[in-house]
């Protein structure tokens, strides 16, 4: 998939800013990679507030993939 936002290791609020930019730029599904709960919650909240469906998948090492369906 091409629309991947790698927000791992970024401090607040960069995961949200980068996700917002991607959501506004692409029409397809977006995948966001984060590595902490705060970013997971913030990105999920942003997507839900914008009315998108969100799916999350927890990976080993405390990382998450967040899929935002448009």
């Amino acid at each position, binding site marked *: 998939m091409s629309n991947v936002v790698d927000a791992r290791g*970024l401090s607040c*609020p960069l995961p949200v800013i980068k996700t917002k930019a991607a959501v506004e730029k692409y029409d397809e599904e977006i995948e966001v990679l984060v590595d902490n709960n705060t970013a997971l919650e913030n990105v999920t909240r942003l997507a839900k507030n914008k009315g998108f469906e969100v799916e999350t998948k927890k990976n080993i090492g405390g990382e998450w993939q967040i899929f935002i369906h448009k």
Partner: protein
Amino acid sequence: MDRKDWLVVCTGLVIGVLAALLVKWGNPGNMGLCIACFLRDTAGALGLHRAAIVQYLRPEIPGLILGAAFAALIGREFRSKGGSGTIVRFLLGIFMMIGALVFLGCPLRMLLRLGGGDLNAILGLVGFVVGIMAGVEFLKRGFNLGRAQNGSLAGALIMPFIAVVIVFLAIYQPVFNAEAGGPIFVSAKGPGSLFAPLAISLAAGLVVGFLAQRARLCLSGGVRDYALTRDTYLLKGYGAIFVGVLVANLILGSFNLGFANQPIAHTDGVWNFMGMALVGLAGILAGGCPLRQLILSGQGDTDGGITVLGMVAGAAIAHNFMLASSPDGPTFYGKIIVIIGILICAGIGWVCREA
């Protein structure tokens, strides 16, 4: 409001009410909790500055760190992370503290002062919002201090370990240099001589640290998130802190509306504004207010840890170089350094951009 919203509202209410009670139990006026003031008092107790009226090893500080550490352990969030613009964050911590000590309080105390009727804090709040908005402009232009990496467990344990050491020092109050009277110093008069019983202060810190970690409470984040995405999650926390402390102050009879004769505050509106503008700007660039940095330092985030140590250094600098305000007002050097600080932070915001 969903479950998370209730968490941040309850956290805010508990902080507001506890802060008012801590004043009742002995802490200085409108200073039930203040991250900047308490780190400054701690720096004084350790002899890092020798301003005799602001020296006390505040148990709330280690309480907050350890409360956040417990919350992070329970939530399986305790992880060693760091290495993102380390020395820049140290500098931002220094300026965050200096701005706060020109205003006389961190963003949390700003809300507590408002809830105590101190109208000078309104100027601080306006300055804080302006500083945050300036920081948001840098964020929109690609400001980024770089990615944090996974680190060693040892690194993550440093701040919780320091917190444990401070608890022991606070309990046993050893005097290392009897001739000088400390460290550990304790103020004979002034704000440093006003404190709630140790066990209560420590417990309050633990509770607030635990809740603030769970709710991700951040005082600079509220305005920032609203400006960026119209997200009101953290703003609900601001509102709850204000309501909590206001109602508790009214019940306890500690509400006193006005500009003059407010506890540990000055009436110079321009420098209340400017001090908090610096805190707002530095806080956005560092990714969180003083409270949030302390919480992050407890959950293994060494970037948060270095920012806290920057704030401690900033407190020592502020009092050694006569930068901190007093109830009489800001100092000449304090005004100069706030302007320099804003320029340097703006420079950091401009230079540290993604290509």
